[in-house]
């Protein structure tokens, strides 16, 4: 049976001060709901370990093969494509698990905003990767610096809608990308080692921090 809903009562607000107070309530409630992070600390640690495994495989298997061969192209894309997909899957599964624990959905409008914010950086990284596989000599190991910068862009975009740690990680990747691309050849740390330090180390430190601060 159709039930008529009660009509809203309208109220007169006389002062701008009262209106400001209500806008403050809105801002605060929205911030609490969005900054109540569902990002998982465990995900950070696992993603870091996956990246370290990728670095190890690149160092031991992929590096020994001539970069112009078809096998190298398959191996390079295979290793780093797997690292990317495994990391993405880990993040989705663990974020969903944590979101469910807090009564939120990972694919809420906010989740969609975050995906949209992260996408351009990832697409740029993918473009660099395809270019690198087609022209390995032109970029050399500096592809890793380009990845760091692309990832930094994604993190800094996501950070605008999320907690400050995400932006912090973004700035760290930006600085690392800058160093990787601009430090002189033969300096004490090369691009491959920087890859392990950043995608491996940074993620693990970030994950441990997030886990301790916001829970696992």
């Amino acid at each position, binding site marked *: 049976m159709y039930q008529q809903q009660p009509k809203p009562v309208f109220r007169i607000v006389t002062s701008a001060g009262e209106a400001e107070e*209500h806008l403050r309530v809105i801002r605060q409630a929205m911030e609490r709901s969005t900054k109540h992070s569902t990002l998982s600390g465990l995900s950070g640690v696992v993603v870091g370990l996956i990246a370290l495994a990728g670095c190890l495989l690149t160092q031991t298997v992929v590096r020994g093969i001539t970069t112009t061969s078809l096998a190298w192209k398959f191996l390079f894309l295979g290793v780093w494509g797997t690292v990317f997909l495994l990391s993405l899957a880990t993040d989705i599964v663990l974020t969903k698990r944590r979101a469910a624990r807090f009564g939120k959905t990972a694919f809420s409008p906010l989740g969609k905003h975050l995906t949209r914010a992260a996408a351009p950086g990832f697409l740029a990284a993918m473009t660099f990767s395809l270019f690198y596989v087609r022209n390995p000599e032109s970029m050399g190991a500096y592809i890793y610096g380009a990845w760091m910068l692309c990832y930094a862009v994604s993190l800094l975009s996501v950070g605008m809608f999320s907690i400050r740690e995400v932006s912090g990680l973004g700035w760290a990747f930006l600085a690392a990308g800058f160093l990787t691309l601009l430090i002189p050849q033969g300096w004490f740390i090369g691009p491959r080692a920087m890859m392990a330090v950043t995608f491996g180390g940074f993620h693990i430190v970030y994950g441990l921090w997030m886990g301790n601060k916001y829970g696992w």
Partner: protein
Amino acid sequence: MATVRKLDALDDVIHQKVRLGVMSSLMASGGADFNFLKSALGVSDGNLSTHLTVLEDHGYITVHKEFVGKKPRTTYTPTVAGRRAFEIYVSALESLVRAG
């Protein structure tokens, strides 16, 4: 002045602070359960429950009840009417602040 009076008229269903908090929270998160709203807004079970009923009665939110394992879980989502009412409410407040 007719224009000012129109700006000053605010939907009283949303205007109450807890209901305003609930609507703001749901608009930002897209949907949330009772416990999440309780912790985000810092209100008691009874208080929150009363205000959620008012919002539901006015058709501003929908309620979805389910069992997660053996635990019951109630999720709230803003309706199209609720979203629209919230947007109108916020623009009315902003106009009021701008008008000084």
